[in-house]
């Protein structure tokens, strides 16, 4: 029994212990049950959208799993904001393939429409979307939202998905999906004792088996493996990579060769391209890029992302360089446990061998023409997207987050078969993106034509092809005012 003494009264107020416990329990329970409602009442008072219902539209990439995850996970966001802020939100998803998405976004944004409130942009579009003022500059938003002040896994993430112009602190995007190039290989083919024996007998070396084995591999060594598995009579080939003229497919695949062999595509400080892209060294890289066609299935000059997935999943090729983002499409239920995802081989020999591959992935960008309500929801969405639980959920569903906290988790490598390679390739200096200039589309189109022309045999001289591309791109950047120098007189004679 507990005895309370009323102050100043001198009388005693006696309360049975059991009643006190009951009362305490009832109070505790009512507090626990009522807290969310009380919180919601507070939230309703605090959040300007409390009690309202908002419809949002996301524009993303058709057939791209990580892109659709933004919408598939949106019910979680809806629950979150209902709980935390007291408003209701629903999302619709518009989509277009990679090669048409910019067109779809730009034509809508050019009319100052808020048709798409949040856009999953490709990294190279940042300049083209930012310069006309179509997307929201995020520096102030990040400054006001501590949840967005994240520690990213590497500077590459910031350079690729967030900043424009390159090297500045102006932030226009936040990473939606991180992506890198990876080498997908058929582990079950490597594990086959007959194959192991035959390879050892032919080349006097064992077939690589582990991530570490492949990490140490150079292109010359890997070529033997590709050659070994190239058996057209069995409808099997050793390798596939992207040579297609569509969008940036050939460019991303070729840049792996160009950068890894010590070449450059331009000087971002001066906008100079002529003399940097069209070097003999890069011409040799282009020739090497083409030479790998002999280990690819027929028609490889038209291979893009989808074709690469097709030939791999249908057992036509032993290996393919493909984006980490399409891991869930590459490793089908039938192939689970039969695929190894490893870093692409290094170029060169000995200690000088290196690999620098293309960055993929997409940032979120926010439509600058959103009205106040939709802008608020978009920012709430970003705050929610980078919460630790959301990032882990995204990874578990097949996405690739970019923040250091998630990627540093002990269990991160085991979430998806490609995660170890994704993290490895995302480290500083192993991957990089190309220009973010507003004229990227024109520059890319010329480059794609040139590379396609060479790999298909329409043009036979790799140096002449690079001369043509460099001159045309120099002209574009000079007209734009980015490049200080005009194309040289020698450019008059260039053609495909």
């Amino acid at each position: 029994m507990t005895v309370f003494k009323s102050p100043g009264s001198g009388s005693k107020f006696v309360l049975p212990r059991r009643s006190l416990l009951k009362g305490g329990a009832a109070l505790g329970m009512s507090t626990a049950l009522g807290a969310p409602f009380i919180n919601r009442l507070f939230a309703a008072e605090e959040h300007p959208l409390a009690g309202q219902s908002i419809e949002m539209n996301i524009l993303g990439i058709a057939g791209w799993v990580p892109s659709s995850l933004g919408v598939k996970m949106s019910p979680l966001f809806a629950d979150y904001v209902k709980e935390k802020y007291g408003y209701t939100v629903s999302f619709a998803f518009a989509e277009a393939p990679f090669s048409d998405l910019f067109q779809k976004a730009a034509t809508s944004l050019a009319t100052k429409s808020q048709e798409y409130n949040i856009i999953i942009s490709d990294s190279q579009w940042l300049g083209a979307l930012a310069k006309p003022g179509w997307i929201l500059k995020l520096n102030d938003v990040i400054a006001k939202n501590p949840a967005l002040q994240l520690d990213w896994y590497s500077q590459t993430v910031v350079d690729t998905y967030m900043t424009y112009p390159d090297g500045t602190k102006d932030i226009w995007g936040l990473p939606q999906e991180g992506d890198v190039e990876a080498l997908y290989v058929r582990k079950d083919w490597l594990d086959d004792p007959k194959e192991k024996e035959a390879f050892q007998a032919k080349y006097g070396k064992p077939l690589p088996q582990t991530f570490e084995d492949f990490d140490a591999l150079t292109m010359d060594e890997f070529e033997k493996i590709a050659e070994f598995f190239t058996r057209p009579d069995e409808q099997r080939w050793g390798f596939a990579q992207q040579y297609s003229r569509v969008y940036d497919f050939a460019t991303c695949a070729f840049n792996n060769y160009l950068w890894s062999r010590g070449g450059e595509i331009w000087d971002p400080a001066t906008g100079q391209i002529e003399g940097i892209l069209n070097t003999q060294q890069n011409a040799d890289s282009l020739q090497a890029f083409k030479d790998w066609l002999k280990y690819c299935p027929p028609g490889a000059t038209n291979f893009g992302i989808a074709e690469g997935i097709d030939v791999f999943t249908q057992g036509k090729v032993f290996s393919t360089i493909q984006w980490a983002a399409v891991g869930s499409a590459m490793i089908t239920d039938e192939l689970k446990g039969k695929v190894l995802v490893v870093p692409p081989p290094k170029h060169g020999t000995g200690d000088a061998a290196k690999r620098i591959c293309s960055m993929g992935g997409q940032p979120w960008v926010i439509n600058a023409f959103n009205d106040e309500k939709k802008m608020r929801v978009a920012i709430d969405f970003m705050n929610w997207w980078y919460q630790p639980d959301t990032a882990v959920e995204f990874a578990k569903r097949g996405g690739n987050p970019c923040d250091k906290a998630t990627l540093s988790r002990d269990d991160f490598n085991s979430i998806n078969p490609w995660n170890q390679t994704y993290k490895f390739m995302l480290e500083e200096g192993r991957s990089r993106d190309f220009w973010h200039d507003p004229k990227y589309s024109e520059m890319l189109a010329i480059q794609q034509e040139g590379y396609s022309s060479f790999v298909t045999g329409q043009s036979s001289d790799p140096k002449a092809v690079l001369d043509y591309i460099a001159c045309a791109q120099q002209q574009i950047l000079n007209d734009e005012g980015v490049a200080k120098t005009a194309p040289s007189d020698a450019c008059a004679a260039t053609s495909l």
Partner: protein
Amino acid sequence: MSAITSRPRLARLFDDRRMMVLTLLAPVMLFFIVFNTIPTLWLLGLSFYNFSLTSGMPPEFIGVRNFVQIFHSRNGIWLDLSRTFTFVVCGVGIQTVLGAALGFLFWGSRDMPGRRIALTMLFAPMVLTPVATGTFFRFIYDPTFGVLNAMSHGLFGTGPIDFLGNPSLAFWAVLAVDCWMWTPFMTLMTLAALGSVPKAELEAAEIDRVPFVRRLSLVIWHHGKFILMLGILLRTIDSFKTLDLIIPMTKGGPGQQTRLVAMEVNKQAFESFNMGWSSAYSVLLLLISIAMTSVFIYVLNLRRRREG
């Protein structure tokens, strides 16, 4: 008197024939002006400006500089034009010959059982969207999975043929699909042309035992040429604008082998958003189309003028 005055004002307008014609034409004219004339004039105006949607800069008047740049372009524009003319001449030529042959075949077999079903099947490619046609032909041509390669391998033992990746084959592979798609249209036009030939004249020629070739030139061609030429004209204009078939098949590749003029306009306008440059290029293409149409109409009216 009272009957006339009691009629609604709109009805009275039709008493004047000129007013009636104008009133009936007005909606069409309005539609034409809003959706054709104004955009064309806008296009013409824009062709004198440097205006890129993604530059963030306002349009800048530059006179005829866009046209000068096009004429001095290093980007293979003249090659595009010559490739497009080859595509038009070969495509429309093959479609006309095949379409006319099929038209005569169906015209001469009116009592054949199953003719209607055969005609319906024949016209099916024409009603498909070019994008769908291009997409499924990309798969048909595929050297690894494609049915055409599987058939040629099964029948003739040939190795895989990369129809769309080989610079020597890609153009002709695309042209073949265009012919597959549009030959039925020329068949339809041939049947319409043959249908316009008076039966009496044909019977008279038959009774007089006029040879088929002479019957063709004196009777059939004389009456059917306008419809047939109209078909050729429509196909020429349409073929000149070919874009949606090529994009899913080759995107203009390999290299530039299947890049036609419409692709360059599409790329500059809707991928690079160079609205001034692409407007200037469109104006030039419009002038070429008008010139081609004028030539057709001139040829068509040549004999009538001579006779006149």
